């Protein structure tokens, strides 16, 4: 049973009520109830529901599977790629020479790896997210190649793919997919990465209104040295609705052949040295008007969509690398002797392998769960029927009500906004647009529309940090040897450090994760919290009762186990832990909203914990779902999976409990005030404040 759909239905009933109560003006829109516009209700709202203390089990259980044909297809893709990477790619040389040799690049092009997600009609492989994730595992064995490919297709050509017109697609995608042209994504400018205000590159329309002249420079552009095609974001003058001229960001497809483009010297980086990163400057570069992606002035949304969808590309990268590392390191630990014992017999070494295996397992589970959710076929019938996601009770009555309809094509987590209805005092106006939009942005614009949630981001944060820990542990097993260039560990360590930084630093991603969820939960809980603040006895008693229940150790049952359970009984304990955490998380979120309201944006330390708990909850769900499936269908070594899942869930359970305790009011575990004060004093002086321990006063 689909809970979302239920909610949506119940709300649509309410909606009807509101409309009839406002019937004075709304007499003309009688046809609205018939026109139940359907959204893809099962869209990626799982993580968001966690904010409300709910588990939307239909979303994540059972673990997504692919058909046998597809599996064969993947394997047929994977085998040659794996062969290529083990035999032809010399990562050491790439790292040393800071350049990917042309023959390697040609090999990648022949394998079609430059157009993994480009639809087949444009000459790409047209692979699903799941397949992409599988290939990503192998591609990530060389960080430089992975980044080069990601810059090309995860962000570089994504703009054309998701927001480009048919002509643009037909013109550019075939050459990009074949690798004849390499793409780059030019957004960042000196200033800061996430701040749109820092974009100073200007695009001025020529007199004949046929070309834009681009002026400015972009920094840290991956593939910037040799890219033939770039997605460039620049400010253009747009006349707003109120007739005031405004500078807004617009996305352009810029060919190097247009002229006026110069690339700087490649940056000398810590890791991923083989990838090309440099500054790109535009000096009166002429760009034809038809090369604008989307609308003029609509570049912000395009950039946001590209960035959001691009994040998925790194989801499975970590697990691929760790699996490889485990093999290499275990070999060493099994053969190296110390005090007459193998290294593998020492407890502290064993722990490292457990950590690595557990991390790889969790990352893998999260990556493929996310990919599967994104690949899940959308609503069978894309016509305008089905449930409606509605926001009426979240907006003041009488004001403009906007109903968003998002039918997820979900090819890359991008929904296609196929229509929206505006319900106003004049009745219903229905409009249709075919602007592909990433779901969160739809929500941002329309306020309160329940749409997709960035599960890829959750995976991304977990994998990048887990990856860093694991590589570091693997290096540690080898001790001094790992630190030398004779072994690849130091290279892996350097390479994987970038995962925490690019495509939004993990700090930024945490803000995104926490705030998106808070916004969603806030919309739903505002009414209740307001009642509570007003002193509504009923609501207060309900709260009190629930708290009392929690205190008395009432068992939380969210339906993961038991009669309609979706988790295998062998994992029931872990599932209970997850349920308990979810319930606790829900009440904590409510409490935080009560305490901070919209000012929670300022409380970054709180948001960080909220994001961390959510990541853990999602990870727990992923491992539970995956290992339940493994037991049920009897996969090889499923008992090992169960062991890993139980270990991880217990570990995460206690961590979550600790973080949630810290989030309570006046919690002694919470050191935030002190942390802030320390930082403030250090930053005020911009130096380490303490006196030297050898200093004296007399």
């Amino acid at each position, binding site marked *: 049973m689909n809970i979302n759909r239920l909610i949506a239905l119940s709300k649509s009933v309410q909606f009807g009520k509101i409309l009839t109560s406002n019937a004075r003006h709304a007499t003309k829109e009688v046809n609205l109830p018939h026109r139940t516009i359907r959204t893809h209700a099962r869209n990626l709202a799982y993580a968001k529901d966690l904010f409300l203390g709910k588990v939307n089990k239909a979303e994540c259980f059972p673990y997504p599977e692919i058909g046998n044909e597809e599996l064969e297809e993947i394997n047929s893709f994977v085998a040659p790629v794996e062969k290529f990477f083990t035999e032809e790619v010399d990562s050491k040389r790439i790292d040393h020479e800071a350049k990917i040799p042309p023959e390697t690049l040609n090999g990648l092009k022949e394998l079609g790896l430059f157009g993994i997600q480009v639809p087949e009609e444009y000459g790409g492989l047209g692979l699903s997210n799941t397949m992409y994730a599988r290939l990503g595992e192998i591609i990530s064995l060389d960080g430089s190649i992975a980044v080069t490919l990601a810059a090309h297709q995860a962000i570089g050509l994504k703009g054309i793919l998701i927001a480009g017109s048919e002509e643009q697609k037909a013109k550019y995608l075939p050459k990009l997919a074949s690798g004849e042209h390499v793409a780059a994504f030019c*957004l960042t400018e000196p200033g800061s990465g996430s*701040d*749109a205000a820092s974009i100073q590159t200007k695009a001025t329309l020529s007199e004949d209104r046929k070309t834009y002249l681009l002026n400015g420079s972009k920094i840290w552009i991956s593939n910037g040295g040799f890219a033939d095609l770039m997605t460039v974001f620049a400010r253009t003058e747009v006349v707003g609705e109120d007739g005031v001229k405004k500078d807004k960001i617009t996305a352009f497809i810029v060919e190097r052949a247009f002229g006026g483009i110069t690339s700087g010297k490649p940056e000398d980086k810590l890791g991923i040295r083989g990838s090309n990163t440099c500054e790109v400057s535009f000096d009166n570069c002429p760009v034809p008007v038809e090369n604008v992606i989307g609308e003029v002035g609509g570049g912000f949304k395009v950039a*946001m969509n590209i*960035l959001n969808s691009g994040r998925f590309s790194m989801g499975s990268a970590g697990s691929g690398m760790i699996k490889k590392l485990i093999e290499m390191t275990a070999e060493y630990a099994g053969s190296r002797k110390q005090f007459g014992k193998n290294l593998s017999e020492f407890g502290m070494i064993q722990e490292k392998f457990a950590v690595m295996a557990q991390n790889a397992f969790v990352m893998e589970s999260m990556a493929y769960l996310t990919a599967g959710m994104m690949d899940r076929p959308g609503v069978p019938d894309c016509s305008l029927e089905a449930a409606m996601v509605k926001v009426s009770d979240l907006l003041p009555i009488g004001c403009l009500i906007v109903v968003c309809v998002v039918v997820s094509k979900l090819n890359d987590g991008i929904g296609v906004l196929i229509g929206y209805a505006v319900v106003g005092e004049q009745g219903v106006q229905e409009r249709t647009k075919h602007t592909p939009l990433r779901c969160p942005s739809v929500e941002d614009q329309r306020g309160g529309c329940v749409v997709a949630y960035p599960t890829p981001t959750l995976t991304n944060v977990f994998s990048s940090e887990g990856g860093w820990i694991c590589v570091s542990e693997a290096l540690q097993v080898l001790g001094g040897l790992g630190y030398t260039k004779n072994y690849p560990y130091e290279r892996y360590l350097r390479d994987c450090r970038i995962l925490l930084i690019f495509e939004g630093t993990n700090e*930024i991603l945490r803000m995104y994760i926490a705030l998106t969820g808070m916004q969603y939960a806030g919309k739903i809980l505002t009414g209740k919290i307001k009642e509570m603040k007003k002193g509504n006895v009923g609501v207060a008693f309900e709260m009190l009762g629930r708290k009392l229940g929690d205190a008395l150790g009432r068992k939380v049952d969210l339906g993961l186990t038991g009669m309609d359970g979706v988790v295998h009984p062998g994992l029931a304990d872990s599932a209970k832990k997850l349920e308990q955490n979810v319930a606790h998380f829900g009440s904590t979120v409510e409490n935080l909203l009560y*305490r901070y309201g*919209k000012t929670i944006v300022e409380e970054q330390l709180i948001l960080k914990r909220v994001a961390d708990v959510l990541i853990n909850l999602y990870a727990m769900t992923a491992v539970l779902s995956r290992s339940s499936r493994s037991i049920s269908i009897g996969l090889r070594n499923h008992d090992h999976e169960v062991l890993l899942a139980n270990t991880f869930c217990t570990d995460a359970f206690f961590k979550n409990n600790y973080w949630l305790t810290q989030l309570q009011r006046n919690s002694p575990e919470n050191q935030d005030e002190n942390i802030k004060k320390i930082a403030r004093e250090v930053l005020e002086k911009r130096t380490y404040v303490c006196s030297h321990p050898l200093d004296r*006063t007399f």
Partner: protein
Amino acid sequence: MLSVWFASGLFLRVLSPFEVLTMHTKKSQGDQGALRRFHGSPGCYKSQPVPTDPGEEHEDRIKKDKSLITHDDLFERVAREAKTKATFNRVVDVFSKRDIRRRGHVEFIYAALKKMPEFGVERDLTVYNKLLDVFPKEVFVPRNFIQRMFNHYPRQQECGVQLLEQMENYGIMPNVESKVLIVQIFGDKSHPMRKYQRIMYWFPKFKHANPFPVPLQLPEDPVDLARLSLNRIANDLDAKVTVYQMPCTDISESGEEITFPHVVGIQSPDQMELLAKHNPNRPVFVEGPFPLWLRKICVYYYILRADPLPPEEKVEDSYDPERCFDYPLQLDLDLDRDMGDDDSFDVEDVDEGPVFAMCMTSQGDQATLNQWISGLQETNPTLGRVPTLFRLEAGPRELQGVADPGPGYREEGEEEAETDIVVEEEHQRSQGVKQ
């Protein structure tokens, strides 16, 4: 032996320390007679403040002449020659060597304490230790419980305490040598020892209590001093000091000597940003001089400021939803922070105008300050379009006690406000001008 001691004591008593000293210095001396060597009660010396005013000092001397104290004279005589640490030490040596019993040492120490600032040794720990060394050792250490119970040798102990008190007042921390001396002189449970212990308890604690310490030695160079002072006022690590003009003297064609005052300014990037945003139709003001005290020196600074924005011109930075690519910068919620979690204080903000830059100069006339403004223009092009008004006051005048028309606005070309860095210098110069 005893008789020898006695005899030598007698002999020494006949010779005044002053005479001993003159034997060294081979200078003709006045008519101070042996009669003056008689020691009276030193009670009146207790905790006398260090005289600062010459007139007061003169009165003091008269009083002393009437009394029977002579140690002052000892220092007075030497002072005629040179007031240095060496001569001070010599006086102490002379006294110490004169009499094995150190007769009159309490009076001597009181006199010496009083004279220390004159000789410029009031911050010299070795001199204090030397003075402590004047006390005879072991004589005042209590030997039994009764002595310990009562105030043993109160006058001597009090003198010791007084010495430590003076050290304390000048911020001099005793060292181990002082401690050893005190133990030798008064014993380890005496009042001076307690005083020592208290000093040693508090001084280290207070030593770094000031978060904005002023260096003990202020720079002599007015430009360096201005740099230091401006950095102190600005309290912004990003602020940049610019020397718009180095002090120099030049001889003009007509042979006159022209001195160019130094002009040193400071401005932070934030201030530049504020100035860039300033509405060019509204004037900015150069105001000053304002005093800033650094230890015993007073310096003056000028500020460039504007009036606070009138409420109707204030532009609230509106929330731009298309600002951040990665996460919403604001939540679209109708919930405010709960009162229980609102830790902010209710502070009534007085709306003050922005200060755009500060400067210091030795000559606060409008011509000089104009140089500063034109220097600022190079980095702040907006200043060229903004009307600049000078509202200068005659600040430092008031401090000199010279008849002053009082603070008020001055017009262009009028007599400039004297703004010397050091008050004393200012004093001298204005006298010179009068002459």
